């Protein structure tokens, strides 16, 4: 199937029920209702290549770059993605206990305080080349440290041995 790319404001998006959008093409008048949005690069490029998929999982279009959409659509798409993708940003680590490679971390995130468990630090903590760190806990929930070098001294001391 040939992908239908959305390059600019040729399509309008309206948010629906927080995790869905309606997509309407100005020129053709086509309307796609109850679409879901998926980031193709949720780790390396959050705002580029957003797939628009229908209820059956079929891809109907691909947004090349959210910033090219008109303002209202951009907001709708961003709100929808924010609602769908929950990857709290860790701002600070307050406590870490570690025995036998099983950790219990307490962290302050942009969504509030959270306590989670890590089983295998080799696979669960993934440092990326740009100082970002992705963490996946024992329940498969995800967290992100946007730049671990910018953490406070105490947090840095806790996380560095595991990077």
């Amino acid at each position, binding site marked *: 199937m040939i992908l239908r790319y959305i390059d600019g404001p040729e399509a309008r998006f309206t948010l629906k029920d927080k995790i869905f959008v309606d997509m309407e093409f100005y020129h053709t008048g086509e309307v796609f209702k109850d679409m879901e949005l998926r980031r193709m690069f949720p780790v390396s490029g959050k705002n580029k290549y957003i797939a628009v998929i229908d209820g059956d999982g079929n891809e109907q279009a691909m947004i090349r770059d959210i910033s090219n959409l008109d303002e209202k659509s951009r907001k709708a798409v961003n709100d929808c993605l924010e609602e769908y993708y929950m990857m709290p940003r860790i701002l600070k680590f307050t406590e870490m206990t570690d025995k036998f*490679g099983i950790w219990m971390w307490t962290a302050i995130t942009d969504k509030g305080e959270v306590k989670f*468990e890590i089983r295998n630090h080799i696979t669960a903590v993934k440092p990326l080349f740009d100082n970002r760190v992705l963490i996946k806990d024992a329940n498969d929930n995800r967290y992100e440290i946007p730049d671990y070098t910018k953490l406070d001294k105490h947090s840095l001391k806790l996380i560095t041995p*595991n990077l």
Partner: protein
Amino acid sequence: MSFMSNIPLPDGILEKAKNILGEDNTLFAVVGDIKMDGSYGKSALVFGRDKVAAFDDAHENGYTSVDYEDIERAKVKRLYGNALFRVKLKDSGKDRLNPDGGNKNDNGGKWVNLIRFSYAAADMADAAAVFAETCRDEGYSDNLLEAVRSTYMKMRSFCPKCGRKLPSPDSPCFNCAGKGKMFSKLAKYVLPEKYNLIFCIILSAVTTGLSLMPTYITKIMVDDVLPNKDTEKLGKIIIFLILLYIVQYLLTGVRQYRLRCASDGIITGLKKDIFAKAQYLPMRFYDKSSTGSVINRVNSDTQTVKEFVMRISQEAIVQFFTMVGIVIIMFGIDWQLALLALCPIPLVVFISRRFRKMVSPKYRRLWRRSSAISTMLADSIPGIRVIKAFSNEKRVINKFERYCDEWRKEDQHTGMYAAIFPTLITFFVSCGSLLIWAVGGRWSVNGDYGVTAGILVSFISYAATFYNPVNFFANLSDSYANAIASAEKILDIIDAEPEHNFGAYKNDEPLQGKIEFKNVNFSFDRSKKVLSNINLTIEPGDIVGIVGTTGSGKSTLINLIMRYYDDYDGEILIDGKNIKDIDMGYYRSQIGFVQQEPLMFRDSVFNNIAYGCGDVHVEQVMHAAQIANAHTFISKMPDAYDTMLGERGVGLSGGEKQRVSIARAVLKNPGILIFDEATAAVDSETEFLIQGAIEKLIRGRTTIMIAHRLSTLRKANKIVVVDKGEIIECGAPDELLKRKGKYYKLVQIQSMSEQLLKEKQSENFE
């Protein structure tokens, strides 16, 4: 029955729920950890016999409730890193949400989000969704609650002491086991070598005693022999020292040999156990651990732990004896000087403890770097063909160099600490010697406290020897930190939960081959369900074709039958018996599994066919090869059945490897046969040969075949169509064709493409 809740309900919620649902009508709760606005906080669903109450600040008055009879659908919508419990209300124009108050809007036909939660609560929420829908259809019964309870029990597998999640119910908690327990586990590998080790300790004590004598003799030489110019006594002392050295170094040689034997025994035991355990680890372990890190544990970590065990069991004891011996001698000669010599000890102990705290995390980082190198090796060397095919050598080399450089940087960083601290300790130790010179020298010059030149010289010598064990114990923390990091990795495998019930049940009855799936749900992780609500019955002797698009869940179905994954919801029965109640070894021996890419071992063709069959007669192997249409090509090879295959079957074509793997299945004589895309990777001619082999093999056996090419399934009497993890069609091929559903479409598409291919081919021939 007690009230079930995945985590304790927030204060006051249960009372409110009782008000809404009725005093005796609260059965269980799903407690969410995320609020509807996406921030962390508590929310809850409390289920009763006829309705569910949802608590979240997003609802008017902080709660809402829905009658089951008003629910058209209840489902868990998995998002990224979180999930929603949603219900679709029946469309009849009336307010079905919160009928007791609050929202009075017309919400019929709409989806409503009740609560949000992280994946920690997803399993319980799934069970709750099924509960609500079934209650709506059939009314409440205790059996429905039991289904929720079984999910709840699976979730409740956490440590009663610290509350952490356990790998499986009733397994020991790693967190609550101390490091002492960790070493007691490793003691299992040391005990078989106890006689060797004890013998070596005795030899150590003797050689240590002998090594302390020359220093004392030095005092005699300085105080008696040299001032009196007693050459006769000097000669006797020299001869005595020669004999002493001969005995001392002879015993040291014997000790070193016996130590080597003991350490070999320890490391071999460890390696054998890790490898053996690795064979029984569930597939989930390998889904999450790289092969490189497992190899690293077998090779490098066992070595580190062994070295530490040897240091503790031997050197530590020797050094301890030396230290105690010297202290006794020093106090015997001069107690004032002895106290002076002990002055630096508190400083050394303090630095050593500080060092251990600082260096432990660095060794963990170092382990990561080293593991990354092993993983890269394990990936790239076996994949060398692909690397070459894509001319990717340079990129692979660059990546490897980067990993090596990172390791070097980390090792140098750790090395810096490892160098600075012992040097600092040695510095303070040397200061201790200077202290003896400064104070003891003055006493000797002034003739105070009876300190002679001989006493001073021997004291300096004893002090230098004394600081060796002090230094050793100070540096022990370095290897201790390193060994702890490695021991953790080793125990990660040794203590991991193995696949269940190998040898747990006695079962000699051959399987008839009736397979039943009952309400089976499965997901690899909590983020996405791979199989949903699978109900399927396969009768003995059935030939069942499983079709569906890529990623629809066909192979996962097979993985569950093979028991590669056991943690699914629902039941799979073979001949009416739950497969989890059948001995794993016996069970798998009853199934022949032919995969798309058959794995060949680095062994002869004969042994590859006879793999896993123990003592098998040559003619049985040849017969199996004949049935599999493999005999002809094997016999044409110069070394025939003795042909050695390279790694991964190098030397055979794809179709030949497939036929060898079919011969393997023939030899096993299984009751159930499974073919997972067995002919997908071969040409039409080879497919014909393989197909012929398969047809001979499947007679009278329950057979399950996954195939993209529907022509492969022409013998099938039942077709199962899987789509997005669900069975959407199931029945006889003709019946499904008449229904004109998904199977019909698949057949149409394939017929068209085959027709096109034929036309194209005929054009080319013309």
